């Protein structure tokens, strides 16, 4: 996919009012969107045309969104975002294990949904077009566990554990910042670049808040490791080696 072309999104949502609303949000924000009500209609739509992303509701009549996701993943590498009314982390984990690439809990704001869609499309486009360096590939088997200096980041579960196996809570922004560091490890990253990389999730970030964010992340990683070093006047560098599992 070319990132300049208009992305086509397939929405699977059984509630007609919700479907209409989401389609309207997507269209008003420059996407080409088609809505279907269940798994069968989705299969038909996928047979007739190609899509850049599938937005899949978990609660569907008949076959559940989780089952649809698993089946779709077997035959296709299309990026999938799961949408659920449960709002429970357990569903998120389940959805991600079924092969979804991201998860949006209902009820969500239009802004939040759009940010997730854009972020995923960027990830998919980046890897698809440029071949990438293997980080965060879309639609493949879970390759999203990153290990560094004994630490372990599970990107699907959004879970960070320290060398002792202790879970260390991260905010969404901190998680995204850490992923940016891990994907650009041992390279100096400027503040502007970090800003750009983390913007998908951070609504209104500026230079100053990047510094705050980095200091918060450092504190959680334990400063004595000196994993994230400041490069005076330029930005930051992530020093440790990263292994992908």
């Amino acid at each position, binding site marked *: 996919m070319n990132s300049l072309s208009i992305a086509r999104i397939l929405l699977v949502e059984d509630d007609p009012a919700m479907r209409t609303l*989401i389609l309207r949000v997507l269209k008003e924000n420059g996407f080409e969107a088609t809505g279907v009500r269940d798994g069968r209609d989705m299969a038909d739509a996928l047979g007739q045309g190609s899509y850049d992303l599938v937005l899949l509701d978990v609660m569907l009549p008949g076959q559940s969104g989780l089952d649809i996701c698993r089946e779709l993943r077997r035959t296709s590498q299309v990026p999938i975002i799961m949408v659920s009314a449960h709002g429970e982390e357990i569903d998120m984990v389940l959805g991600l294990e079924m092969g979804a690439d991201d998860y949006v809990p209902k009820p969500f704001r239009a802004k939040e949904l759009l940010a997730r869609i854009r972020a995923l499309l960027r990830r998919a486009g980046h890897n698809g077009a440029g071949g990438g360096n293997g980080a965060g590939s879309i639609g493949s088997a879970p390759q999203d566990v990153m290990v560094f200096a*004994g630490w372990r980041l599970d990107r699907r579960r959004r879970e960070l554990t320290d060398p002792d196996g202790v879970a260390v809570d991260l905010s969404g922004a901190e998680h995204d910042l850490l992923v940016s560091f891990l994907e650009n490890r041992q390279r100096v990253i400027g503040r502007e670049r970090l800003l750009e990389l983390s913007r998908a999730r951070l609504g209104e970030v500026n230079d100053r808040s990047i510094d705050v964010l980095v200091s918060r992340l450092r504190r959680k990683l334990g400063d004595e490791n000196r994993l994230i070093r400041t490069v005076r006047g330029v930005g930051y560098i992530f020093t440790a080696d990263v292994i992908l599992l």
Partner: protein
Amino acid sequence: MTPPLLHRWAHLWPRSLIGRLGVVLFGAVLLAVIGNAIVLVQAEQDYGDETQTWHIAEQVETAGHVLSAIQPERRAAVADSLSSPFLTFTWVPNPAERANQGDNPASWLLRHEMIEHRPALAGLDLRLRTGTETPSKTFDGDLRLTDGSILRFGATDLPAYVPVLYAQLGSIALLSIGVLLMALFLVQTLAAPLKMLVKAADAVGNGPPVFIPARGPQEIRRVALAFNAMQRRIDRLITSRTEALAAVSHDMRTPIGRLRLRAGFLSSAEERAAFDSDLDEMEGMVNDLLDYLGGEEDPERPRRTDLPALLSTLVDNAVDAGHAARYDGPDRLPLTLRPLGMRRAFSNIINNAITYGGGARVTVRDTAKAAVVSISDDGPGIPEAQFEAVFEPFHRLEESRNRGTGGTGLGLTIARQAVTREGGSIALKNRPEGGLTVIVSIPKQDEAAQKPTQKIARHTLS
């Protein structure tokens, strides 16, 4: 109803069922022993007196026959030798000196009793004279022998019969005490199901229903069955209400979700913000309700979690949202807990501090047995009388804190649910310099059990 006369003794009346039954049993046994003794001693006395009379009748008859059969010149000596300390015999040759039969009832009664036992005495013209008392212990009398001479006999102060029962009083007392103890033991077993019932009744409303086994006497068995049935009904009622409330809360999310999106189409940014804030509030209520209702059977598993990281995220989020919040404490403190539940708990407490107290200062103290988290604000505090009430579901401190902030009154309830699940405690304190401090203590008790696996984990990962 206690009669007025008994009022001054009322404090002696035991409170417990066993005590009361004990007193009743003791009274009953005592009455039975006394009553029996009276009746039995009387019967034995009567029997003893009668045998004494029969004995005398036999001796008198025998003496009569013996004297009739021997020569008159030997009769005086033989009569004398037949005498005993209780009964004396004298031979009187001259019938003219004979006295009449005594005319009082006691004399007639004694004569009747003797003749009844030895009818031959009637033919010997028995005459008796006694005092007025019965049984007669002092009397004299005479018989006419075949040749017309008289045999006189007399008794003075015959020994009173001592009932055998008196000698057995010790054994009787011992037996009564044994019976009493046995009865009390049986009463105890009767009361045991009652105690179980009390325990079960105490537990109602503090968790799942407590069913008690239907044991013991029929009445108590029936009470137990009725109690269990009542518990089932209550449980069903609560469950159906809870499910209905949860279902409605859950379904509310769909229209809230639509409204969220619709709000995005509003042209006025001001309107959009107002919509969003209302929707935030609605969503918060729905989430609170679902957290509270689902709180009892939270499926989350405990895991090793860094407490400062969890608290810092909450504090940082509050700072990002423009609130005054600060964290002071160790950078690292691993604990075994349910991270989602505890995040919800601390989030509720910190939000309260921000909403009602203008900001939140979070501190962590690492003690030997627990991690102690204090969340302080600079608000008006809470009247101490309300300290327990604020943890009650749907309780809100309207009078002091009403700022139109909404909320469901479930925040602290959910927090306490979550903290209790970790075996911890939550307490409130008004600081002397003003402001409220919420103190959450999370025990470290299973730390030791966790350590061996930690070591292995470290080896494989580093």
